[in-house]
């Protein structure tokens, strides 16, 4: 694997010399398909799209595919491998090297999603990364690589856009459409106004028919004859407690400054 990763690094450096590939700040291709999952035209299209996103949001969005990250290498963890690729190739945008990378290793169907840089870490929270995973994993399950990578880019762009507007997607800050929020505001304000006006209206209508005669019960006029309280049976309901996931929100970061997730696709 060390040889393959080294090859990958060489390819990336070679790509730097190719005048066709006009990459942004990091000088390296956004899409590196060593596993040859994508036809050339689709790879180019994804490359251009990633470049547009990177330039618009000053955050690199990278896709890397390899046949087997463990082959001839010391890596036992795909996330670690991805982090090394990110660091050693100087990936990322700007001085903070903001970037997100999706790496696929085809032999065991491993993937790693890593995030680096202050802005990228704020945009791709733990909850946002979970949303991002859900966007592409369904496609990879059916070997639909192009669709999966396009979904990865689209969802990344969406999360970057939210972060840029000051409302990064996180637990407790669920996104909702503007119309939905307006509807909630209108409903709540009408409800409060309705309650207040209802109380004031109630003061205008005081003639109400009586339905009881409690005030006319004779003194010591209640004689209870039968009082039966009989236990019949008990029932029990058992409900599983679902483990809570990052209910406090935010982005968890390791000692190398990366946040991320990995797994099987």
């Amino acid at each position, binding site marked *: 694997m060390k040889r393959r990763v080294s090859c990958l690094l060489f390819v990336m450096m070679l790509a730097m010399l190719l005048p066709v590939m006009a990459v942004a700040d990091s000088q390296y291709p956004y899409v590196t398909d060593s596993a040859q999952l994508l036809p050339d035209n689709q790879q180019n299209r994804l490359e251009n799209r990633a470049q547009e996103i990177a330039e618009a949001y000053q955050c690199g969005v990278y896709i890397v595919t390899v046949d087997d990250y463990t082959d001839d290498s010391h890596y036992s963890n795909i996330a670690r491998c991805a982090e090394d690729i990110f660091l050693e190739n100087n990936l990322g945008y700007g001085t903070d090297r903001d970037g997100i990378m999706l790496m696929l290793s085809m032999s065991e169907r491993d993937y790693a999603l890593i995030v680096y840089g202050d802005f990228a870490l704020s945009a791709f929270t733990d909850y946002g990364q979970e949303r991002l995973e859900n966007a592409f994993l369904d496609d990879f399950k059916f070997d639909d690589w192009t669709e999966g990578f396009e979904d990865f880019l689209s969802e990344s762009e969406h999360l970057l856009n939210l972060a840029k507007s000051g409302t990064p997607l996180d637990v407790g800050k669920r996104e909702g459409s503007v119309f939905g929020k307006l509807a909630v*505001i209108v409903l709540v304000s009408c409800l409060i106004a309705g309650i207040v006006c209802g109380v004031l209206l109630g003061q205008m209508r005081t003639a109400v028919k009586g339905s009881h005669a409690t005030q006319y019960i004779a003194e010591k006029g209640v004689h209870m004859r039968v009082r039966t309280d009989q236990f019949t049976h008990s029932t029990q309901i058992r409900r599983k407690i679902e483990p809570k996931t990052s209910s406090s929100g935010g982005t968890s970061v390791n000692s190398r400054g990366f946040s991320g997730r990995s797994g099987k696709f």
Partner: protein
Amino acid sequence: MPSQIVNYQCPACTAPLEFEEGSGRLACQYCGSSFTVSEIEALYAEKNESAEAAAVRAEQNAEEAAQVLEQQEEADWDTSELSDDWGADGAGMKAYVCPSCGAELICDAATAATSCPYCGNPTVIPGQFSGALKPDYVIPFRLDKAAAVAALKNYYKGKVFLPKEFASQNNIQQIKGVYVPFWLFDGEADADVVFQATRSTRGRTSKEEIITTLHYYVRRSGTVSFEKIPVDASKKMPDAHMDAIEPFDYADLKPFSMAYLPGFLADKYDVSAQESGVRADQRAENSAIAVMTGDTVGRYETCVPVRKQVRLKRGQVKYALLPVWMLSTKYKDKNYLFAMNGQTGKLVGNLPISWGKFFITFAAIALPVAAIASLFVL
């Protein structure tokens, strides 16, 4: 998905029994007793049988008691003691009829009716004083006209949706003191109510939340005695108004005397005791069930009545005149009636609503709330 199971209790100490896979028996962790499944099932089958037998015996007892009661009750209200014999007092009584609403008013010789207190018609026609029952009781007016006028003015204050011109156009000085005829009903209600009640406890392990619900068969049966349930005997007096100005303090209830009438009008009854009795029946039934429910509700988390049975033993009916200050006023071709309890001062009446003011107030609350909410949400 939550699962539901039925627990058996230990026959020795009533703690929950747990199934031990090793021994295949049901064991109590508290007292150490252990039973086979078949022993427990047989025990519970026996318990259920005796519970059913007890329930059947209780039902039979209840039916027997009900049969005894049935012989006594469901008779009509007892109006045998009502009388139309005014004696010498009748000579001094005058009667008036309102040609607009049909009100029949009586008063003493010294009092004159100048307008109808119900519809405000200024022309009332003298009529024949005859056929009127002599009241058994009267509660004299405790509050005078000045107090009634002040109370009505105060009633208008602070009513945001009241049209501005209503209070100014109101002929508030035309407020009149009227003795309104009431039937006062004595009786007993025998109520038998069965409930399904529950109590629950919550527990928690590291993996599960456990809700244990104990189910109970609850029965309450008893007698509730009522005294002088008032039902107004005048068709022209809206029941809602008369119910709303209750209660009257019966400590002031006096045997009827002409001495209380001067200066006030009295309405003649035009709803019979039997007709009014239907309302008294309903109020007595509802209160009897409420008493039975009140005896159970505090002990359980949920208490749902599954069977209600009320038998009424109808007693005597008395005829009384109770004091009410009344004002009938017209606004935009609609009649508005205000009634004040002439003894306690409780005032009721439905006011006209200015819908323009309503919507302005609604907007004046909704818009600032929406503006503040948008600062936080958007």
